[in-house]
């Protein structure tokens, strides 16, 4: 490790990985020209962002199955503000985030006291309630959804040119900027006092409480922050798709998918796990898309294989070398111990003979 640059890279592995990821993503439109694949990458980013919020809540010991519902709250808030109130889209994005955060604050205040499985059921109810409530409000489009949501207004950078949101690439860069902001915010939370408190609560809520951590307040905080991020992503999704239907935010396929790709990437990896999981699931889908009816069956089988043989996620593949090393060390240690044990057994016998 004489090279100072290499040493710096090793010391800041996460930061370097993050920069490589962002640069890689930013260069995607340079070599991917097909709008179809750009669309896939945007969907991967949205799903990965949602899964990050899922893991964020999981850190505090809460399993929320209302991720898609709050995603939908953000999407609908933004769509309503844009279509009915004619508010510019650049104001809709933060407003939808704030509205979702307020909704999460109210809901979370009621349901967070019930931890464990009750919380899972409560969020299940909320996740299903959202779809039927929205589906039954005529002013929100009912089950037919909202269409003709405006794309963001064009921005004039003067000499640098003008960004008009008429192609997938423009949306891709907007999505990437939001995604990077989300990743930075989440990681800032993790490395602050709040993140440490969340970790403590996740490890053992009672112990954390006895150490002076206000469990309810910190859980509520993680719920609000996570749902606000969901809302931001939902708002982006609404303006990107230009139409939304309530069943897209349903519990059964969507939230379970989010949960599954968090598990596929590895719930222990809060930032890169969801990205890997979302990319892997999309990749599976695309790689086998030629087999018509069999595509989903193959994807399901691959999900099962990953989850049975790599329960800690795809990223735990990176720990395999170190695990083999540890196994070797343990084996060597055990052998040494066995040899030591025979000596130790022999020694008292001698000693006994002396007495």
């Amino acid at each position, binding site marked *: 490790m004489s090279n100072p640059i290499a040493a710096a890279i090793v010391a800041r592995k996460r930061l370097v990985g993050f920069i490589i990821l962002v640069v890689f993503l930013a260069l995607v439109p340079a070599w991917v020209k097909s709008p179809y694949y750009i669309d896939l990458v945007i969907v991967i980013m949205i799903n990965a962002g949602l899964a990050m919020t899922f893991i964020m809540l999981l850190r505090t010991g809460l399993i929320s199955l209302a991720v898609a519902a709050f995603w939908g709250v953000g999407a609908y808030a933004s769509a309503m503000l844009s279509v009915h109130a004619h508010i510019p889209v650049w104001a809709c994005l933060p407003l939808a985030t704030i509205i979702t955060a307020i909704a999460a604050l109210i809901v979370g205040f009621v349901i967070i006291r019930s931890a464990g499985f009750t919380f*899972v059921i409560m969020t299940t109810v909320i996740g299903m309630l959202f779809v039927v409530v929205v589906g039954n409000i005529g002013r929100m489009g009912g089950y037919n959804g909202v269409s003709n949501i405006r794309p963001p207004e064009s921005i004039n950078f003067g000499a640098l040119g003008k960004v008009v949101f008429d192609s997938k690439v423009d949306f891709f860069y907007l999505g990437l900027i939001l995604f990077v902001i989300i990743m930075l915010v989440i990681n800032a939370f993790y490395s602050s006092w709040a993140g440490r408190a969340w970790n403590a609560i996740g490890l053992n809520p009672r112990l954390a409480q006895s150490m002076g951590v206000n469990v309810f307040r910190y859980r509520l905080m993680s719920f609000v922050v996570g749902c606000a991020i969901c809302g931001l992503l939902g708002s982006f999704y609404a303006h990107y798709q230009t139409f939304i239907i309530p069943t897209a935010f349903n519990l059964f396929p969507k939230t379970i998918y989010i949960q599954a790709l968090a598990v596929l990437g590895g719930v222990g990896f809060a930032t890169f796990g969801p990205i890997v999981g979302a990319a892997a699931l999309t990749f599976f889908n695309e790689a086998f898309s030629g087999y018509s009816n069999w595509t989903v069956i193959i994807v399901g089988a691959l999900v*099962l294989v990953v989850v049975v043989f790599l329960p800690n996620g795809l990223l735990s593949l990176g720990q395999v070398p170190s695990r083999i090393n540890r196994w070797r060390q343990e084996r060597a240690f055990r052998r040494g111990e066995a040899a030591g044990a025979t000596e130790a057994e022999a020694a008292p016998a001698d000693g006994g003979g002396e007495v």
Partner: protein
Amino acid sequence: MSVLFQLAFDGLTIGLIYIILAAGLVLVLSVTEIFFVAYGQFYMWGAYVAWYTVDRFKMPYVVGLIVAVAATAVLGLLSYALIFRRMQHMDNRFLITVTGALGISLIMAQAVLPAFGTQPKSIPNVFPGALDIGGVHMEVKKLALIGIGILVTLILFYVYERTRVGRAMRAVSLNSEVAALHGINPSRVYLLTMGVGCALAGLAGALLAPAYNVSSGMGNNVIASVLLMTMLGGMDSLLGAVVGGFIVGEVLSFGQYYVHQMNVVYLFLFIGLVIYFRPAGLLGKRSNLGV
């Protein structure tokens, strides 16, 4: 007045399907502690297998019923033996099993399309005719469904409450380690419960097949409401499953007539309130699932 009875009758018909479904899910949830989101697919498979046996092999409906139950039981046993058995002792068990169940659900939901085709199916009516009693129009096929449903529920109660197997299931659901100390093999009880639970789902599907249409989306449509009615009744109580299924069936039937679409909203709100004030459900005792 006859409208009320008619609605109650229709609610009872769909309610019995829900009761059988919820009873199977109660067994799976309370004994194996798996949040089994693939459960609805077994229901769909039961309906499809029954249709296939009756339609293709020209078998009587009763044979179709038996084949459907056997097929879904085997599928349930396989899914436990091949997949969930390996997950029973992992960290993050809840998330891992939900993901595994999602994989199973994807495979089963899609596999019906190449196997049975994409068109909605219906079994030719095996119980023709209808009775009119006091202005209530009761089709014989729905009466048959109610009869078989009540019979199955009674048998299930007998097995669960009075036999050694049922006692073993209850013991494992209370505490698998202590049950193992008393000579019960929890692993075998888990396997058996998964088989019985999935067979019940298949039975519900096969019972539904002559009275309603069979389509590939029915599994996805039903799973969320079955989970909710299980939670409403209490996830460790068979009687709770009966109460939950009955309430949901009747509320949907009456609500469809009086408040149209909004009935689902009120139903979910009601269930949410019940769970908020009684996390264990109406008749249940426990509210945790090893999360």
